[in-house]
């Protein structure tokens, strides 16, 4: 029932673990993709691996903190594929610092990538998104339960959840806007955290394991699909029960 034939997806932060799995899923479900990330050269290789013919996957560099890059990405998607239906904002930065030691520029950089980046890309995409389209923002469990030594990241992700709801109100009924809030997912991003207190975190997770990136990708696909056609403004948690609240 989930099918994206003829649909075009713009995916930011495409090199990330969850984003790569998302690209694979949407490709398998028939979508055409514009993948963006900071390093356009590295991304080309991912694009070739996903789609050796190059017919359904386009890649380009996008610094999500630069408004002009967002416009270039949206324009490229429309020029290449003729339309834009789906936007998934997965670009994110997750450095570690206690608030008392946090440098100004690190705070600004994390807010810029994780929050400003969502705003710039969304603002650029709105005029191009076809009616019936959907946006899914990648939020985080950190935005709901806090995250020690990642206050900037958690603050930005909490803001993304509120942004999602407000945008859902603005774009309804033509475009649905939702968020996924991943918990601990087996990607390079969580490796330092798992090394420090993985055993304790898994013991607190009812399902007793890390999530897989493709399990988050499936949630993103569900929210973008017709199966979720009456769901908007919602945050879907994919965390194995580590955070059960709200």
């Amino acid at each position: 029932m989930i099918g994206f034939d003829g649909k075009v997806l713009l995916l930011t932060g495409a090199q990330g673990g969850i984003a790569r799995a998302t690209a694979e899923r949407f490709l398998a479900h028939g979508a055409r993709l514009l993948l963006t990330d900071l390093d356009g050269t590295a991304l080309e290789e991912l694009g070739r691996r996903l789609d050796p013919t190059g017919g359904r996957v386009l890649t380009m560099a996008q610094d999500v903190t630069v408004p002009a890059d967002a416009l270039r990405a949206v324009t490229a998607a429309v020029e290449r594929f003729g339309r834009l239906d789906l936007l998934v904002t997965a670009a994110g930065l997750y450095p570690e610092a206690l608030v008392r030691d946090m440098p100004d520029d690190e705070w600004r950089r994390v807010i810029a990538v994780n929050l400003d980046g969502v705003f710039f890309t969304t603002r650029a995409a709105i005029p191009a998104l076809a009616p019936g389209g959907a946006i899914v923002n990648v939020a985080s469990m950190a935005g709901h339960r806090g995250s020690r030594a990642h206050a900037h990241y958690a603050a930005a992700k909490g803001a993304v959840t509120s942004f999602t709801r407000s945008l859902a109100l603005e774009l309804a009924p033509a475009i649905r806007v939702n968020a996924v809030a991943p918990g601990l997912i087996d990607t390079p991003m969580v490796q330092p955290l798992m090394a420090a207190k993985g055993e304790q975190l898994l013991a607190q997770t009812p399902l007793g394991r890390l999530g897989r990136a493709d399990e988050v990708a499936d949630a993103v696909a569900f929210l973008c699909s017709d199966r979720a056609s009456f769901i908007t403004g919602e945050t879907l948690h994919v965390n194995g029960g580590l955070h059960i609240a709200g």
Partner: protein
Amino acid sequence: MTTNSSHAGRVVLVTGAGQGIGAAIARAFVAQGAAVAVLDLDHERAALTADELEAAGGTAIGVAADVADRASLAAALDRVVHRLGTVDILINNAGISPKHDGAPAPIDAMDEAEWRRVVDVNLTGAFLAAKLVVPAMQAKGWGSIVNMSSVAGRTYFPSIGVHYAATKAALIGFTRHLAGDLGPHGITVNAIAPGRIRTPLIASVPAAVNEAAIQATPLRRLGEPIDVATAALWLTSADAGFVTGQVVDVAGGWLMT
């Protein structure tokens, strides 16, 4: 991953499946290859829905039971297990929302028997059904339960009685704690909180109430039973294997959590 038959081989028990959202859920699971037990208090409705699903080429049986009555439910479950096998997926959908001339009773006029009956069906029924099916799920190391809550269990919702709202809120607590308890057994437990969905229940209130609800809903329509059914399908599919203890609003943006 192909989603053409996401639930092939699964045995699904849907309570309150004789009409409305429950029937749509039963239909959706059959369409995805599951064998479905259509349970309803009304024997005729259960049989009719099951017949319709069988006629469409699916596997379904109708069973009559009062979910609030342990003996009645246990007897029905025995028939399900005998005919289809042990239950893999439980959809606790049975619910009542008594109205009087299209409106719920205010608390000072709410009959105690009515309060108890709503609690028995909407809350105790979910408890009894889960209690009866969980041992087999634990034995298999896999299972999935979806409880039908409501946006009325999360916030004030016009034209809903306090008994109904209280049970729907209680189902959320039930969902969260059961998810924590059963997670280590490979069983996921989630809830769906529908907004105003076009069902016989909704048809019992004045049209103006529904029109006001549409105007307050960002997607500008009532939900359809299939909108809830597709969420239930997803939550019980392999795609949602890491999702547990959650409440998914299917409300067109009327409530956003």
